[in-house]
């Protein structure tokens, strides 16, 4: 069962959207406004869709004549951020863990400790019956036994959540063109570029800057590269019978190293940007959860790089437990942390293309 969305958050966002709809000065900024202006009245599903289309670039906030102290008190980026997070929590499955992590960085940290301990235990009790490289610390079959469900369980959970989202916003049958349009926008992070392609207003009030957009893409492409590294290694292992460890000039290493650097640098920079930005223009309640997620993801990249550097030292088993523990936690928490946003954003962009 999904939970009902918070009606107070929805009605506040609706109040603001109705004011925006009578103004329309922001129509050039992002995908939210053309979608908003195409309607006269906003159902809960409409508001949920607008909330997931919003990338929190804040251009509309700084351009707005009606922000506090004006009595209309518009703060659309915040109103939509709160609805957005509430939508992820309401659609998440299973519900008992749905509201534990988006707003709680401490819970993410605790989950990481548990994940690390689980891996440490696995290393100690399962260990390895021989193998090269990391497989000397934990056998390949043990890794597969742990990470195969770790990968597929969150995907199953997200499939349930996205189905709920799709029904809530009135999505229609998918067409190939909807999907390519959405991916093309996400690939360029068009909605963090402002209408004039100069970026968003984030770390320095109303100054347009590409920092957040570029940092976001570093993280996104860094993650994709790391994922591709694992993918190619799996193919090499099973199809070409070429098990790890791999030399530096091999696809898994090159992809993984570049991805790890992007992920580490990107997450570090994103953390710094978030510290500079005005928390009250996003979802203030989710700040800790967002930060915890960024640190966890950054640590996945960083510990992976450390493993590369120190892989042949005695520190390797400890580092391996830390890295795999972080990866385990990251994947298992995907449906319940900021990581879910990527899936919802894509769904919202697909819906917007319909």
């Amino acid at each position, binding site marked *: 069962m999904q939970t009902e969305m918070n009606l107070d958050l929805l009605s506040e966002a609706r109040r603001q959207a109705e004011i925006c709809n009578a103004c329309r000065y922001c129509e050039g900024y992002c995908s939210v406004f053309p979608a908003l202006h195409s309607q006269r009245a906003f159902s809960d599903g409409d508001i949920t869709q607008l909330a997931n289309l919003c990338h929190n670039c804040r*251009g509309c906030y*700084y351009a707005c004549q009606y922000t506090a102290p004006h009595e209309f008190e518009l703060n659309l980026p915040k109103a939509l951020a709160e609805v957005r997070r509430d939508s992820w929590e309401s659609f998440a499955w299973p519900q008992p863990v749905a509201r534990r992590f988006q707003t709680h960085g401490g819970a993410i940290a605790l989950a990481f400790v548990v994940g690390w301990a689980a891996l440490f235990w696995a290393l100690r009790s399962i260990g390895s019956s021989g193998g090269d490289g990391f497989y000397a610390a934990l056998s390949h079959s043990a890794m597969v036994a742990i990470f195969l469900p770790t990968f597929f369980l969150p995907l199953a959970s997200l499939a349930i959540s996205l189905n709920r989202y799709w029904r809530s916003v009135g999505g229609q049958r998918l067409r190939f063109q909807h999907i390519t349009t959405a991916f093309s926008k996400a690939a360029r992070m068009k909605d963090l570029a402002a209408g004039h392609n100069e970026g968003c207003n984030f770390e320095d009030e109303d100054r347009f800057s590409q920092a957040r957009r570029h940092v976001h893409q570093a993280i996104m492409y860094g993650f994709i590269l790391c994922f591709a590294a694992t993918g190619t290694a799996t193919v090499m292992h099973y199809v070409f019978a070429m098990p790890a460890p791999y030399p530096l000039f091999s696809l898994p290493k090159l992809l993984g190293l570049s991805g790890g650097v992007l992920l580490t640098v990107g997450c570090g920079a994103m953390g710094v940007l978030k510290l500079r930005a005005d928390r009250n223009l996003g979802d203030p309640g989710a700040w800790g959860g967002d930060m915890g997620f960024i640190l966890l993801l950054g640590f996945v990249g960083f510990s992976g790089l450390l493993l590369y550097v120190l892989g042949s030292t005695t520190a390797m088993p400890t580092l391996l437990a830390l890295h795999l523990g972080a990866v385990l936690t990251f994947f298992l928490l995907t449906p319940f942390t900021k990581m879910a946003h990527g899936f919802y954003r894509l769904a919202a962009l697909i819906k917007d293309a319909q």
Partner: protein
Amino acid sequence: MTTEYDIAVIGGGNAALCAAMTAAETGAKVLILETAPKAYRGGNSRHTRNFRCMHEGPLGPLVDDYNEDEYFDDLMKVTGGKTNEKLARLAIRTSEECLPWMQEHGVRFQPPLSGTLSLARTNAFFMGGGKSLVNAYYRTAVGLGVDVLYEAAVTHLQLDGDQVTRVDYTHNGTSHSISPKSVIVASGGFQADTNWLTRAWGPAAQNFLIRGTPYNRGVVLADLLDQNVRQVGDADQCHAVAIDGRAPKFDGGIVTRLDCVPFSVVVNKHAERFYDEGEDVWPKRYAIWGRLVAAQPDQVGYVISDAKSLNLFMPSVFPPLKADSLEELAGMMDLPPAKLRETVDGFNAACGDTSAFHPTELDGVATHGITPAKTNWARPISQAPFYGYSLRTGVTFTYLGLKVDEKAQCSTSTGPIRNLWAAGETMAGSILGQGYLAGFGMTIGTVFGRIAGQKAASYAN
């Protein structure tokens, strides 16, 4: 503040910023004295949206061309000839070089979109509206070394002979005086001073709403007029439009517009119609309705519409009142129910064949045999639920201002004031005697702001 300033700019909107940036680029040390706090900086420029621009061939976001004569003709139409041709043509001609200048100083324009297509040739729309223009200009100005004081209220300019010798202002509760070499006044009109409006308009002005900033109180304007600086326009002239009666007293801005009148009937507090609601398309009539409503008892009008017309106009910021019967709607609006019924019944009976009804053009679907007639879009108000809005007079700006020449320089009856220039709304009456052309206020502010900045700087340097 101990710095010696070459130039003090009074006001913090578009004209003030254009003047300050232009002067600072010559190396002059410039101080902006803005009455409003930072959150409300920018005066009425915060509420603007576009810049009307002459151009020979496509320019920036503008398509085709819009030449000087066509622009001037458009201006003459709306002002009924009450236009200073020399200054108007100067503003129009200079507007073309202003657009790239605006872009160089941080303004971003948007491609023509849904609601703006009809103006894609004549008006360049600011991405995000006027506040984003103001934000960009403040960033550029500060980058050029301009100092900005917010909540700095100028109280007096000391005029000795043919020059301003002192600027008095209050800031953080204390009084300060500075003696810059040049002074530029760009602090708007006086429409936010309800007492002044009331003196000029009579008690009716108490019920007017002010669409823009509450900080345009005309303090500096009054101070200069008291010292016999030459004025232009009359205090009882203001540009006003009919807006949603529930709008805030100040700063309601664009969202309080209502464009439902052509598809409705409008009555006064006695539930009587008083003017042809369908005379022309709304953008050509909203200013007339500002004055019509001002002339009604209590300066209020009531729009009565029905279900079949609701989707013909833009969504309003406040939802309309909604009732299943006219009597119930009358109750909600404090109108005499029987009289409203009588008025609407009379109107409905006067409606004829409505098959030619066309919401986006003058369709000639008119009433017959009632006064006042409704000459277009006349359809019976008959399909429940019924919808109601109140209308009030919303003042956009005042025409009374400082008379300037083509150098934006102020003068007294004995000649020019050597170090005083004016730009923007405070001198717009030098060009516009009545009426208004969309986007022309920003043209005047930009053109004369830049001129004032140049002249003030060359005097100071």
